[in-house]
C-alpha cells in the first residue's frame, strides 16, 4: 500500500502545516489580538472584561516561550479544546462547532454526491448529440461560472421571498423548537431544500461539462476509432468511453473539494443556514479569533477526509493504482 502511505504522508504534512499556520497567524499578526477581541466584546461588564483578559492571556499562554506555546496548542487540539467563543460567550468553541457540523454535512454530502452522479450521467449522454450538446454547453458553463452566493441570493429572493414556495433562510421555522416530531422534520427539509438546490446546480454544471469534454476526447481516441472501424455498435463505444472518462472525474472530485468548501460557505451565508460556513462568517465579522481558528481547522479536516475517501475509491476502482503501475 505504498500509494496510500504516500497520500497519508501528504495529508499529515498538510494538516501539520495548517495547524502551524493557524497557530502562528494569531501570534505574529500586527496588533494585539486580545485587545481587539476585548474591544469587540465591549458589551460585557468591566468585571467580566478583566476575567476575560486574564483568560485570554492564560489561554494563549502569552507569557510562555514560543515553543512551549506551540506544544500547548497541539496538546489542547488533541483534547478537543479550541478555547471559548467570544461572540457566543461562554460557549466553548468545540461545542459551537459540533452543533453546526450536522447542518453542513446534511447540505454538502447529498449535494456533492447527487450533482456528481447526475452531472456525469447527463454530460456523457449529451456529448456529441446535436441539440442537447448545444444547450448543455452554454447552460453548463454559465452554471459552473455562477458565483455560489449569487445563485443562493437569487433563489432565496425568487423562490423564497417573491414566490413564497420555500423559506428563504435559517434551518427551521422561527416558531418551532428542535424536537423529534414530524412537524420539525418537515420544517428542516423545507429549509434545507433551497441551499441544497443552489449548491447542486452550480456543481452539476461543472460535472456535466467536464464529462462532456472527456467523452469527446475519448470518442476521438484511437481505441474508439478502431472500434468504430470494426463496426462495433456506437452504444458500446460510448460505454467504454464513459468508463475511461470516469477516472479523471473521480480525481477531479478531490481537486474540487476546496472550491466546494468555499462554495458551501458562501451558500450558507446567503441563506443564513447555520453550518460551519455561516459560523466562520460570523466569527470573522465579530473578530472572534478562537472561533475562526476552530472553523478553519474543521474545514481543513473535512477537506482532507474527503481527499482520503476519494483516494480509497480510486484504489478500488482503478486496478493500475492497486498494482502500483502508475505513480500517484
Amino acid at each position, binding site marked *: 500500500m505504498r500509494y496510500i502511505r504516500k497520500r497519508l504522508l501528504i495529508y499529515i504534512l498538510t494538516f501539520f502545516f*495548517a495547524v502551524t499556520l493557524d497557530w502562528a*497567524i494569531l501570534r505574529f499578526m500586527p496588533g494585539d489580538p486580545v485587545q481587539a477581541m476585548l474591544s469587540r466584546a465591549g458589551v460585557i461588564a468591566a468585571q467580566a472584561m478583566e476575567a476575560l483578559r486574564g483568560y485570554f492571556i492564560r489561554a494563549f499562554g502569552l507569557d510562555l516561550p514560543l515553543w512551549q506555546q506551540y506544544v500547548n496548542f497541539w496538546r489542547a487540539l488533541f483534547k478537543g479544546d479550541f478555547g471559548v467563543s467570544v461572540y457566543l460567550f461562554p460557549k466553548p468553541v468545540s461545542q459551537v462547532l459540533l452543533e453546526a457540523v450536522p447542518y453542513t454535512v446534511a447540505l454538502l454530502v447529498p449535494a456533492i454526491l447527487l450533482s456528481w452522479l447526475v452531472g456525469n450521467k447527463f454530460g456523457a449522454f449529451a456529448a456529441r448529440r446535436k441539440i442537447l450538446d448545444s444547450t448543455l*454547453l452554454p447552460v453548463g458553463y*454559465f452554471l459552473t461560472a455562477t458565483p455560489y452566493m*449569487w445563485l443562493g*441570493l437569487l433563489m432565496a429572493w425568487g423562490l*423564497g421571498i417573491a414566490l413564497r414556495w420555500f423559506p428563504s433562510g435559517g434551518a427551521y421555522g422561527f416558531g418551532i423548537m428542535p424536537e423529534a416530531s414530524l412537524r420539525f422534520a418537515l420544517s428542516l427539509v423545507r429549509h434545507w431544500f433551497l441551499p441544497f438546490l443552489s449548491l447542486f446546480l452550480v456543481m452539476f454544471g461543472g460535472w456535466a461539462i467536464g464529462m462532456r469534454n472527456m467523452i469527446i476526447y475519448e470518442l476521438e481516441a484511437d481505441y474508439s476509432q478502431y472500434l468504430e472501424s470494426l463496426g462495433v455498435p456506437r452504444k458500446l463505444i460510448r460505454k467504454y468511453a464513459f468508463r475511461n472518462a470516469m477516472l479523471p472525474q473521480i480525481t477531479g472530485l478531490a481537486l474540487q473539494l*476546496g472550491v466546494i*468548501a468555499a462554495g458551501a460557505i458562501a451558500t450558507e451565508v446567503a441563506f443564513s443556514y447555520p453550518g460551519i460556513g455561516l459560523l466562520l462568517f460570523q466569527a470573522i465579522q465579530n473578530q472572534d479569533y478562537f472561533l475562526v481558528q476552530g472553523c*478553519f481547522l474543521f474545514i481543513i479536516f473535512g477537506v482532507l477526509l474527503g481527499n482520503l475517501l476519494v483516494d480509497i475509491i480510486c484504489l478500488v476502482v482503478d486496478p493500475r493504482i492497486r498494482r502500483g503501475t502508475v505513480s500517484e
Partner: protein
Amino acid sequence: MSKKEKKPRSDVLYFAWRNWKLRLGLSVVLFFVVLAVVGPRITRYEPWAYIGRPRQPPSAQHWMGTTIFGQDIFSQFVHGLYPVFLVGVLGGGLATFLGTLIGFVAGYRGGATDETLNTLTNIVLVIPTVAILLIIVAYVKLRSYFIQAVFIGLTAWPWTARAVRAQTMSLRSREFVDLARISGMSPLRIIATEIAPNMMSYLVMVLILQFGGAILTGTSLDFFGLGPVTGISLGMMMNLALSWGALPLGMWWWFVPPGLALALIVGALYITNVGLDEVFNPKLREK
C-alpha cells in the same frame, strides 16, 4: 478549404474566426472590458455619493436603480468591474506563471527536486484555497486589490504545476529534446525553446482558467467582507445587498447585476476556452 495554402498562422486565425464559441466568448468578455473602461466616464454619479431617493427600481435616470441609501447602482457596478479584471489578470497571471515555472522545473529536473516540488504542490493542492485566504485575510487586512490579486496568485498555482509537470515529463524524453541536450544547450534554453513552444496552446488555456478562478476567489473574499476597505467590487456589492436586507425588501436590482455580470464573464471565458481547444485540436471540432 481553399485557404490551406496560406501560412499556418493564418490557418489558426481562420479557424479561430470560424469558431462560434470563440467569437461569442471573446465578445462577451470584450463587452465587459469596454464597460469597465467607458462606464465610469459616462455615469454622472460617484459610486458612494447619496444622489437620489433610496430604493428606486431601475429607471431612465438610474439604470440599475438605487441602494437603500440612495446611491446609484449602475455607477457602483461599472466601478466594481475594474477589480474583477485586475484580480483576474494579475492573480490568474501570477498563478499561471508560478504553476508553469514549478511544473517545468519539477518535470524537467526530476529526482529529488521533483520529489520536493511535487510534495509541496500536493500539499498546497489539498488545502482549500479560500479557507487559507480567509484566515490570512481575516488577520492581515488587505489594503488594495493588487495585494488581493497577489495573495490569490500565490495560492492558486498547484493544479497548473501538476499538469505542466506531467506534460514536461512526457516531452522530456522525446528525441528532439535529447538532441538539444546532446548539442549542449542549457536546461533553461531547452525549456524555453524546445518544451514551452509545444505547450503554448495549453498554457493559453491554463491562463484563461486561472483568470476565471481568480475572479471567483476574489469575489468570495469580497462577499465575506474581507475585500480591501477602499474601492468597490461586485462581490462587495452583493455583501452590502445581503447585509442591508435587499432580499426581504425585494430589491433584486441591487444583487442581480453584479452576480449576473460575474457569471457571464467567467462563463464566457470558459466557452472561449472550449473554442480555443477546438481551434488548436482539429479532432475536437464539431462535425
